[in-house]
Each structure stands twice: as structure tokens, then as C-alpha cells.
């Protein structure tokens, strides 16, 4: 009984705040985009629009979920559930500052879960039995798996600096200085790759351009659409938290370690607002230009930087202890 309660309460302790954060992040997005476009965002529903996410949530969950009769129901129902499940479970090994599961292979877990998210896009596009959804899903899948290549290689370089896949070691690694200062080209490419990985503008052709409808989630109605929506925003917040942990870790606060979470979350929110700023400013990439960017621009640089990160510590006898 005690085991059941603790196994139930512990995940909920991080999942519920993440979901609340996601809900208000949608509001921040609409307000930020609004102010950047010289208009106010939603400000009618609550004071300054604070109840807008509540209204959106209520609307989405009381609408009737529509299932196309020619769709494959098992996959159609399963994909949004899978998407949200993965987006929430991927927060498991993140040290905030103490992770729920201190995995020795935390980063590997993260990469494998992100790769698994591709399936939810693929199955939703396939199961919708609609050519727009299928084309949108295929393009989104190709984009996601392409950008995971650079994500993996950048992580490899950072692991070589840090000494292991465990995310807590990144705290120790960055006590003298942020990894942003030593690996700033990698951080730039990592930030852009996370933009592409979460299908955000200017890489959002799976949502925006595919015939002006939502691409792979065009056939989804209310509840399942809300699940995709929440999964996407939870993904964005998770990627930004990961960026902060990897490159901007606030572990240098030794006198007041209680401020770790505050510092982490502030940096994460600044990076997320950067995502929104980029969305408001840049037009969308064409699909082949996006692929070109990765395979012909990012990948050679990341491979070269990985080589540098391998050889430089060895040359200066500065390899970290590999745990």
C-alpha cells in the first residue's frame, strides 16, 4: 500500500506542475506573440487573460472527439496517448536538482524517448487515412529523425567533457564555468536543433504549411488534439530545461543551494521565450532547405566539433574521470 502510494504520488508530484506550466506557457506564447505583433494577446477571460488556458482546456475536453470512420482506431487512439506519456515521462531523469530517477544513463534515456516520440507522429498520420495527414506526418518524421542525428552527436561531445551519461555529473562539470563558454558553437546548434526537434517555427512545416491545416493532427478533434498539444508544449519545456542543465547549469550557487531550482527555471523560461521570439520573427523554412541545413551545414560542423571535443582533452591530459 505504501509502495503503491509512493509510486503513484512521486510521478504526479512532477507531472502536475509540468502540466500546469504547459497550460500557462500556452498563454505566455499567445501574449508574447501578441505584443510582438503590436497587439495584446488574450486579456478578456481572466485578469490579463490568466484564465484563458483554463477556458481552452474546458472547451477541448467537453467537445466531442470525432473519429473518422475510415481510420484505424487502435493507432488513432493510441498515438496521442503515447505522445503525452512520452513527453511526461521524459522529465524523469532531469535533475531539478534531484531527479525522480537518478539514471546512470539519463541522457541515453532522453535520446531514446525522443526518438520514440517519432512513432506517435507517424502513427497519427498513417491512421488518419487522409493524404494530407500522411504527407504532413512523413515530413515531420523525416525532419525529426534528421535533427536527432545532430542532437545525439552534440550530446556525445558534451558527455566526453563531462565524463558520463548521468545528468548529475553535469552539475559537477559546470561548477567552474558553464559549458556554454567552452562549447558555444555546439550550444548554438543544439538550440536550433531543439527548435527543429519540437517542430517549432521556423521549422514548423508539419503544422503550418501542409495545406494550411495541422498536418499530421488534422483529423484529431478535441480531447486527442489537446493531448498532442500538451505533449508538444511539454516537449518544448523539457528541451529547454535540458539545454539549461547541459549548458547553463546553475550549480555554482554553493552558498545557497536552495536557489538551484529557481535559477534553473528562470533560465529555462528565458530560453522558452527565445523560442517564442523566434516564432514571431522568422518565416518558415522550405522542406528541402531544412534538410539541407541539417545534413549539409550542421552535421559536418557537429562531427568536427565532436572530434575536437575528443582530441582536445586528451591532448591537454584533461579527460574527466569516466564513471
Amino acid at each position: 500500500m505504501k509502495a503503491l502510494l509512493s509510486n503513484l504520488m512521486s510521478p504526479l508530484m512532477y507531472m502536475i506542475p509540468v502540466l500546469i506550466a504547459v497550460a500557462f506557457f500556452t498563454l505566455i506564447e499567445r501574449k508574447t506573440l501578441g505584443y510582438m505583433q503590436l497587439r495584446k494577446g488574450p486579456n478578456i477571460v481572466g485578469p490579463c487573460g490568466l484564465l484563458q488556458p483554463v477556458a481552452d482546456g474546458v472547451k477541448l475536453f467537453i467537445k466531442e472527439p470525432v473519429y473518422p470512420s475510415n481510420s484505424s482506431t487502435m493507432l488513432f487512439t493510441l498515438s496521442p496517448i503515447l505522445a503525452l506519456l512520452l513527453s511526461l515521462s521524459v522529465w524523469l531523469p532531469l535533475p531539478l536538482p534531484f531527479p525522480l530517477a537518478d539514471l546512470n544513463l539519463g541522457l541515453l534515456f532522453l535520446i531514446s524517448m525522443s526518438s520514440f516520440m517519432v512513432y506517435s507522429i507517424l502513427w497519427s498520420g498513417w491512421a488518419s487515412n487522409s493524404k494530407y495527414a500522411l504527407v504532413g506526418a512523413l515530413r515531420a518524421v523525416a525532419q525529426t529523425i534528421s535533427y536527432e542525428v545532430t542532437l545525439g552527436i552534440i550530446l556525445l561531445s558534451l558527455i566526453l567533457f563531462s565524463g558520463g551519461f548521468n545528468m548529475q555529473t553535469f552539475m559537477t562539470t559546470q561548477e567552474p564555468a558553464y559549458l556554454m563558454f567552452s562549447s558555444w558553437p555546439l550550444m548554438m546548434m543544439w538550440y536550433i536543433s531543439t527548435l527543429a526537434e519540437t517542430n517549432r517555427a521556423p521549422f514548423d512545416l508539419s503544422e503550418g504549411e501542409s495545406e494550411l491545416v495541422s498536418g499530421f493532427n488534422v483529423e484529431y478533434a478535441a480531447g486527442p488534439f489537446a493531448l498532442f498539444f500538451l505533449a508538444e508544449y511539454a516537449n518544448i519545456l523539457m528541451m529547454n530545461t535540458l539545454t539549461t542543465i547541459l549548458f547553463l547549469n546553475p550549480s555554482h550557487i554553493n552558498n545557497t543551494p536552495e536557489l538551484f531550482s529557481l535559477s534553473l527555471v528562470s533560465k529555462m523560461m528565458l530560453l522558452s521565450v527565445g523560442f517564442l521570439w523566434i516564432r514571431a520573427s522568422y518565416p518558415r523554412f522550405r522542406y528541402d532547405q531544412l534538410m539541407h541545413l541539417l545534413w549539409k551545414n550542421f552535421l559536418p560542423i557537429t562531427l568536427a566539433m565532436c572530434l575536437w571535443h575528443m582530441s582536445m582533452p586528451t591532448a591537454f591530459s584533461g579527460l574527466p574521470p569516466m564513471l
Partner: protein
Amino acid sequence: MNHAYIRPGGVAQDFPEGWNTSLQDDIPLLAKGIKELEDLLNENPIVKGRMVGIGILDLTGCMALGITGPMLRSAGLPYDLRKNAPYCGYEEFDFDVITWDTADAYGRLRVRIEEMKQSLRIVEQCISKLLDSPGPVMVADKKIAWPAQLSLGPDGQGNSLAHIREIMGESMEALIHHFKLVTEGFRVPPGQVYVAVESAKGELGCHLVSDGGTRPYRAHFRDPGFNNLQAVAAVVEGGNVADAIVAVASIDPVMGGVDR
């Protein structure tokens, strides 16, 4: 401010109080906004990647399809009806006709943004000209003139009470004129006319044929969007679907005019 402001004989009503100060306050804001747009768009690699070399329609193609407006000017021909066939006093204003040499979507973007700046120049010259010599608001002949002294009434719209009192209470002439104008209109001598203006999308023309009555025998509007849209087939040939979207957007049709 809608299209009924410009009516036969002049304009509907005079400017409100303080029009020139509020305009002169807004012009620097607009100039700043245009500068911000330019900084954001002109050298942006994503914009250039999406628009350079897309939707090319060179000068022969434009002439064959009857394209006017920024599309034609992006192909290099400095054809602007405000200079070639001036109307409404445009010959007295000093502005440049913007052309670009690559006939692609990027050229049309640059042409349109530069034209915005030229429009601001024209507005400034208009303000000084109107302040010097205001001129009449509506022609004096009461049988044609249909002025409107609009003000907000209790229902939020409509003619001012003074105007209504004049029509209904004071002057029989005004009542008769108003009645005849609203129900019948005025007679136009028989004949036909085609007049074109340079609108933002191209040449907007009006062809009117009159048989001497109060209604036109035929009225046809040459909408620039309709003619420019015929270029879609020529412009998207050989390109990607994503390029088709950019190309059609650079043609900039107004679908309401196309339907017309």
C-alpha cells in the same frame, strides 16, 4: 472611412479638427515601422532562401499576360499610371517609380516596401498642399452634390442633426434634392469612358457605358487581381508546391476582385 467617401462631385465631408497634427505625428511612426520591417526582412537568409529565384515572370511574360503593378515593376519596366497617365493631381507630386531587375518574389517584396516609403513622401506633400490651398469639399451644383455631415447620433451612425434639420425642416429645396439623388440619381450624357488608377495590386480600371439615363448601361471593373492571377500557371511551372505558395502570394491577388 470606406469607399463611399469619394463620391461624384467630391468627397463626403471635410476633415475633422486637428487632422494635420495627428497625421504629422503618425508619419515618423510609420517610417520607423517600415525601417524595422526592412531590417527584419531584406537580408534575412530564410526570406531570401524562400523568395530569391521563385516565381520568376520576366518582362515578355508580363507583357503577354497583361500584368500591371508591382509584378511588372519587379521585372524592370517603370510603368506606373500615376506617372504615365496622371490623375487626381499626381503630376504635381514628386515621387519615384520603384523597379527591380530580378522578376522574382524577392524583387516584388523589395518593390512593395520601397513603394511604402514613396507613399509616405506623397502623404507629406499632400498635407502641405492641403494646408496651403484647401479647396472645396463637394461641387457646388446641388443636383449632383451629395454631401454627408456625419456625426454619431443616438444609434451610433448617421447624418448630423443639423443636416437632417436642414433637409426636413428648413429647406424644401434640400429635401427635393436629397430625395431625387437618393431615389433616382443624376443623368449622365450617353457615351462610354474607361478610367484607370494605379492601385496597390496594379491597374484598377472602370469602364462605364451610359445610355443617357440615371443607371449605367454597363459597368465593368478591371480588377488587377483577376488579370495578374492568370500568371499563376506561368509562374509555378517547374517549381515545388512550397514555391507555388510563395509565388501566388507575391502575385498578391485580392480574391474578392477576382470573383468580381
